[in-house]
């Protein structure tokens, strides 16, 4: 055995050496500027597009964005492990107070959340009143042929079967937007459940991610769930119209989302605003901004310049990519205000 030991040892050493050599050299390059960011999943597709295009235009700047969730983005930003964060819901006053440094909100795109359903025998688009959605997700409306549902849908044959509610099991910005809407249209919801990325859902199954929710809805007869607009469009799943504050039933599309944003009269200085249930006949009621969270003071000069430059790019060139990925562009007024706010980063 002892004579063969050296051979084995040698072989093992060779293998180990090769492994470590390739591992190290695979990464060796001249070092570009690497920025790390984390946060919302809702805008991940457009962010990944933007950072990629920006990198092609500025090869020495790499922005590494990971969608770990809005809450995750806020936490990592507060902990200082990322250079900037992203969130579908604006930071609360408490959260901002927790930060050791000032944080600025920069809206990036607009998106929508839609109700998707699977009712055997029903192929058309359903109209959902605000009361209906609140009642369904509260668990007070339990059958598809409830009057609240049949009234706005006269020609549709809604069956006398149970409604199976599907919501998100993971904490998400999509849930935040949806519950924000429900809190505004139903005092019951606001009192019992509230607005957050994760709530105590009165009824329903939990699916993980948009995929999970869609999967469950597709497979379960009589199911209803809420997902991002872009996801419904890309996957061709049916979704209904939602009644807005003016009483009209609106099907989610980019125009309706932009209308909701435009209807907002005063954009606050810090850009923290909710546009669910926005006024206006064409506004889609479950719309929302999503924000980048940037520290007001960045000590690393190179990083600061890169972030500021990216923001400028995003407000002009970046917006051109929105529609292709089913996100709405920011209204002009917001863009102008934001461009000024960039100078606040020092």
């Amino acid at each position: 055995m002892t004579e063969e030991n050296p051979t084995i040892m040698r072989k093992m050493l060779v293998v180990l050496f090769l492994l470590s050599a390739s591992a190290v050299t695979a990464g060796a390059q001249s070092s570009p500027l690497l920025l790390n960011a984390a946060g919302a999943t809702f805008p991940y597709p457009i962010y990944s597009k933007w950072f990629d295009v920006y990198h092609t235009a500025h090869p020495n700047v790499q922005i590494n964005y990971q969608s770990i969730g809005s809450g995750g983005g806020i936490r990592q930003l507060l902990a200082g492990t990322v250079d900037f964060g992203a969130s579908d819901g604006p930071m609360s006053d408490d959260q901002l107070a927790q930060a050791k440094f000032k944080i600025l909100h920069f809206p990036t795109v607009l998106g929508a959340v839609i109700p998707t359903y699977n009712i055997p025998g029903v192929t058309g688009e359903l109209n959902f009143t605000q009361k209906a959605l609140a009642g369904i997700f509260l668990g007070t409306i339990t059958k598809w042929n409830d009057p609240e549902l049949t009234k706005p849908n006269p020609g549709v044959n809604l069956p006398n079967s149970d409604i199976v509610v599907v919501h998100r099991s993971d904490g998400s910005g999509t849930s935040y937007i949806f519950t924000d809407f429900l809190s505004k249209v139903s005092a019951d919801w606001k009192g019992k459940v509230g607005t957050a990325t994760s709530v105590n859902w009165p009824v329903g199954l939990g699916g993980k991610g948009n995929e999970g929710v869609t999967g469950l809805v597709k497979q379960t007869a009589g199911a209803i769930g809420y997902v991002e607009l872009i996801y419904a469009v890309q996957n061709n799943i049916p979704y209904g119209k939602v009644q807005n504050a003016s009483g009209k039933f609106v099907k989610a599309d980019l125009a309706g989302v932009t209308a909701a944003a435009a209807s907002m009269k005063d954009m606050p200085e810090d850009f923290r605003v909710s546009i669910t249930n926005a006024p206006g006949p064409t506004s889609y009621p479950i719309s929302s901004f999503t924000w980048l969270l940037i520290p007001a003071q960045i000590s690393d000069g190179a990083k600061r310049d890169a972030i500021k430059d990216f923001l400028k790019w995003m407000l002009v060139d970046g917006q051109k990519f929105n529609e292709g990925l089913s996100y709405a562009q920011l209204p002009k007024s917001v863009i102008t205000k934001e461009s000024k706010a960039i100078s606040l980063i020092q």
Partner: protein
Amino acid sequence: MDRAAPRRFDGGGPRAFLHRLRHGDEVAHVLTLTFAAVILLLTSMLVYELWVNSHLSRIKFGWMFFWTRTWDPVFDNFGAAPFIYGTLVTSIVSLVIAVPLGLAAAIFLSELAPRRMSDTISFLIDLLAAVPSVIYGLLGIFIVVPLMRTTVGPILINTLGHVPVLSQFFKGPNYGVGFLTAGIVLAIMVVPFIISVSREVLLTVPREQREAALALGATRWEATWKVVVPWARTGILGSVFLALARALGETMAVTMVIGNDPKIAASLFAPGYTIAAVIANEFTEATGDLYLSALIELGLVLFLMTFILNGLARLLIVATERGGGHPS
């Protein structure tokens, strides 16, 4: 031992040689002990971190945390009961399926199958252990869940749903996701551990044991079940603990097929939630210190559960060891 050894400070000759021998052993003892102690250190640090970071939640809820059934992040009311229930139920279901299946397969592979077939199959089964949880989750969604909803579920409800005591556990409605589905997916995930380790252990049972039994007139099965398996008992139980540990902490695959509903229900077809799944789902988004602290307290609770279950399992080993077999 008459050698021309160089003069040492501790004397030369035979005594010095023996001294060096013992010294080497001492070094080995201390060295390995240090590494073993590192494990203790790591685990203590982990528990410490869990304890410290769950402080807010422990203070606010106290012992009520264990049986509160609500989980409300908006109104800051948190309880662990539904998650403890879900973790226990899914783990038990998975073991009930995986242990007989795994042990039977291991017996086949070690006793009956020709060596090469056994090695190949065993090798393939080891591959199952490498499949990432997420893939199990996806397969769960695309295969197991529809199967449960359309075929297996109705069959079970129509048969066992009418048996007096069992009917409690097999009631509809049946969405396809739920405790049973999660248990099945978990069973598939842990069975490779049971088979792999049990097979290896069964193979180490000395041939004489088997041959003695056969010589006394036992059938193949009797020799295996009454002599070989008991001999390998400790190792097999060890593999079951590995499996149990995996089942308790499994995250991704479970969350995709369990329904993620924090409720306690008797029926195995009802949706549920486990501790690991809720931590994975909500940790990244948990803003608010109490919320985060409650999630970490759940981690601590899971730790406690593992602690207790391991203790019970160890008692089981001691009890079974009384009957002889491979000394531990």
